[in-house]
């Protein structure tokens, strides 16, 4: 197997392992790993590596080995994307803050206490908003005002 085939095989495995990632995330990951391999090959395996002829394949194998299993890289990327997604707390807070007033009025009209119910819904939303670790203080103040 030639060096280029070795690289192509590695990138193919990474592409397959990362097929479930959002497209921009996957594209950036492929770009970065491709760039890393090119840089590492150009550097010849680091300052300690000698440049004797015929050692290129050994260098490349070390480079790919140090990068690790493509599946591990894809898993790390997927975990990062998952961690960025909003949880139930955020979704419920936004729903209650935005829709709470309307929903509260509708529910409350039946019991002729619309304003009170709307306020309760809004309060629950606000509590969730403030207890969420995901938003910054400025976002929280803005969210409550809206």
């Amino acid at each position, binding site marked *: 197997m030639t060096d280029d085939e070795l690289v192509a095989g590695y990138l193919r495995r990474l592409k397959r392992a990362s097929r479930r990632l959002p497209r921009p995330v996957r594209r950036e990951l492929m770009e970065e*790993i491709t*760039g*890393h391999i090119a840089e590492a090959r150009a550097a010849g395996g*680091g300052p300690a590596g000698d440049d004797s002829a015929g050692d290129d394949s050994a260098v490349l194998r070390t480079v790919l080995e140090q*990068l*690790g*299993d*493509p599946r591990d890289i894809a898993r790390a*990327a997927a*975990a990062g994307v998952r961690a960025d997604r909003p949880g139930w707390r955020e979704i419920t807070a936004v729903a209650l803050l935005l829709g709470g007033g309307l929903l509260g009025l509708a529910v409350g009209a039946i019991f002729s206490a619309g304003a009170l119910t709307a306020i309760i819904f809004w309060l629950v939303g606000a509590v969730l908003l403030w207890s969420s670790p995901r938003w910054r203080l400025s976002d929280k103040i803005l969210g409550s005002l809206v």
Partner: protein
Amino acid sequence: MYRMVAGDAANQVAQMRRGVLPYCVLAMLRHTEQYGFELVRALGSIDGMVTGEGTIYPLLARLRRQGLVVTTWQESAAGPPRRYYQITAAGRAALGDFTQAWAQLRDSVDGLLDAEEAP
């Protein structure tokens, strides 16, 4: 719920390492911007810091999505353009918070471990 078993320490340490890695990256960018390969190689050369170099790239991408770093493309004399990573004000703030919390945790844990060792 959770039970500690012998041989589990290595696993726990690996998890801790994953937890502190983002802040190590931020610390490395504190004084100078770096491109991905350079950053990854520097981290990889620290004993026991990373297992697979490739997993650092998803971490860098996440730091950027969180606004803790920004990236710029810069021409390179050697080959294709490089993506440089630069710490943001939010990144510095996060690093500052971590630095404080880390010092406190380290001292507390050290205190307990040292007390255990004493005769």
